């Protein structure tokens, strides 16, 4: 027994030793090659734009090679977290507000303050509000690269058929009591199988063929594309202080009224029930003539304009306290454990500069964060035939508000989600459920 197993053990050990030595031999042979910086991103539509940035960067910096890896949203974050947990993640990552504080709290992200100061980056070149999002306790963890706003998208062939005029779509009003002109429009666009719309007394809400409004996202604690715009225009504020507050206000009556209005629409048959949406997305539902109106983010523009029905955009409804849209922005963060901090930071700073953001603007896939680049992007979208005034008219500090930034973001989302679903499913009164959720959420901050 001992003899044979020794041989086997020796054989395995030799194999492993060989495998260990191989990379060492390979790397000494490549001692003179350029530094490679790995960069991760998830949006495939933006890949050509950032590859173009990488190409330009490599020309300007011959000693550095940029290797971009793009994978779908969930695969991407799996790769990022696994990589960080094992100390070999991407050198630079496309960061997102929902994830970045956990990464900061774990010490995984590099503080860019000294580098930004040394490079004399002009922070006022960015759209107001974006740069502050990426700082915590005086340290900076990313430079803004893009932003998005929300707007109404609608099937213009359907609205024409429903005799909705462009004037009606220019100034839409909303209030929690009677829904304003927004509710009227939605009801006009809702058609049952007998051809009656939801304003008619003969409307059959159990046999709706086309719904006025797309279903709201049933688990979101940001409400980015749906309830946040109405709730904030109703006076709702997410936190006691934003960014970096420590007390949520989900029990605010302003929010309860907003969600109750959504529930009214779902029960009334003119808002699509979130029970009945799968993974098909807005363009699919519009193409199948199941919905007429929807509220979408500017990152969805290309998907919507390439739908088989003529999709147009309008600015969001004006609520009791005006028109408001959530204003989210991505940034690029540097891995604190990167083996090449100087080069990685160089790439990150380049991504936050107009040199790169002008290239991205020309591809018309996203709104870059630098004000001058944003203008170029708007022009590029127009040239590509997308009429996006609905989105662009909202880029105004009086209209935009930032997402809730606080610790425990993932836990807050996990707690809030089911409660929101219960409200939309009609399993309880909005105010009661929100108060309960809010209590659990704020308990996270007192521990």
């Amino acid at each position, binding site marked *: 027994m001992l003899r044979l197993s020794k041989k086997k053990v020796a054989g395995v050990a030799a194999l492993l030793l060989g*495998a260990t030595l191989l990379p060492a031999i390979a790397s000494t042979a490549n001692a003179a090659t350029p530094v490679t910086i790995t960069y991760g991103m998830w*949006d495939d539509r933006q890949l050509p734009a950032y590859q173009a940035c990488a190409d330009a960067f490599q020309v300007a910096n011959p000693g550095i090679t940029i290797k971009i890896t793009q994978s779908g949203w969930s695969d991407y974050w799996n790769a990022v977290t696994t990589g960080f947990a094992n100390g070999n993640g991407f050198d630079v990552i496309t960061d997102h507000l929902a994830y970045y504080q956990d990464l900061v709290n774990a010490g995984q992200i590099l503080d860019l303050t000294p580098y930004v100061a040394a490079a004399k980056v002009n922070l006022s070149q960015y759209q107001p509000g974006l740069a502050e999002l990426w700082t915590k306790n005086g340290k900076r963890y990313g430079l803004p690269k893009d932003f998005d706003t929300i707007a109404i998208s609608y099937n213009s062939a359907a609205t024409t058929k429903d005799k909705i005029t462009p004037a009606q779509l220019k100034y839409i009003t909303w209030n929690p009591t009677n829904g304003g002109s927004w509710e009227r429009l939605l009801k006009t666009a809702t058609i049952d199988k007998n051809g009656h719309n939801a304003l008619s007394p003969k409307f059959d809400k159990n046999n709706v063929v086309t719904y006025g409004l797309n279903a709201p996202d049933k688990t979101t604690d940001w409400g980015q*594309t749906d309830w946040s715009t109405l709730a904030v225009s109703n006076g709702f504020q997410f936190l006691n202080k934003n960014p970096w507050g420590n007390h949520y206000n989900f029990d605010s009556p302003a929010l309860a009224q907003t969600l109750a209005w959504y529930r009214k629409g779902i029960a009334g048959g003119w808002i699509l029930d979130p029970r009945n949406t799968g*993974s098909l997305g807005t*363009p699919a539902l519009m193409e199948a003539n199941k919905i007429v109106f929807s509220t979408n983010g500017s990152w969805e523009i290309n998907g919507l304009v390439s739908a088989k029905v003529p999709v147009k955009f309008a600015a969001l409804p004006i609520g009791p306290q005006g028109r408001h849209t959530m204003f989210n922005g991505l940034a690029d963060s540097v891995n604190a454990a990167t083996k090449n901090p100087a080069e990685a930071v160089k790439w990150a700073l380049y991504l936050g500069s107009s040199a790169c953001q002008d290239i991205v603007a020309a591809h018309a896939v996203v709104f870059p964060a630098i004000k001058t680049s944003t203008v170029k992007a708007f022009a590029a979208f127009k040239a590509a035939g997308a009429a996006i005034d609905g989105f662009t008219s909202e880029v105004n500090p009086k209209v935009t508000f930032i997402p809730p930034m606080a610790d425990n973001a993932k836990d807050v989302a996990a707690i809030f989600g089911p409660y929101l679903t219960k409200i939309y499913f009609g399993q309880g009164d909005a105010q009661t459920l929100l108060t309960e959720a809010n209590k659990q959420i704020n308990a996270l901050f007192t521990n």
Partner: protein
Amino acid sequence: MKQVKYGKVIAWGFVAVILFITLFPVAWMLKTAFSSNADLFTHYSSLLPPHWTLNNFRRVLGIASLKENQAGGGSGASINFWVYLKNSLAFTTTIVIFQVGFSVLAGYALARLKFSGRKGIFYLLMTGLLVPPMFSTIPNYGTIKSLHLLNTWPGLVAPFIFGTPFAVFYMRQFFLSFPKEIEEASELDGLSTMARIRMVVLPMSWPPIFTLSLIVGVTAWNEYLWPLIVGTNENMRVLTVGMGVFKAQNPSDAPDWGGLMASGTLTVIPVLIILILFGKKMVGSIQLTGSK
């Protein structure tokens, strides 16, 4: 006689219903693979493609131009189908050979050879069945990383080649069903253990071994999470990971249905071929006429 016929009709009816339920979704998958993404929602209830197209397959195989790619609703990402296919074949074959090999030996020992600690070892191995695969991923990743085997073939196949609790369990149960008389006869003939395994047991165990090979093979072929995080380099990517490009890339997007179903179809075909070719062997009839 009538009773037998009646029973046979019911039995066939049952099989027919099962076949329909089994095949309808597969047919739908094929129909989507041959439809253009543009038609999918405007004709969402049609049972046949409104306009037959090979565009999805061309995109999956990486032979469509960038324009065709984006017109078909795909992303601009490049797909090295043949490289991924080659990697999947190598990955699967390696795992099948080693995992089945080691598991057969261990399964036989645990079923038929008497040695101290046999029961203990068996129960110990069975506890491995209880570990949620997703939970062992991070520690295993750490192990492979500390051995500097990330993005290498040994690292990619390591957790799978040493035999698995399932495979050992499977072979052990089959060897328990193996008639003892034949083995005892060969023992009386003076054969050593290893010779007995080679010349008597193995030849008569081809059906379960082939079946196990198929199971191990299909499982390895469809493996996703481990190759995703260990085989990140383009030249080490396997088919399932490469085809992930057709899933929704953004949280609010829909998947690229045409590409997804086409890639699903292409992923199934190699396995299906092997199944048809070797199907007979797997469940060949063993007429055991050994009597007391």
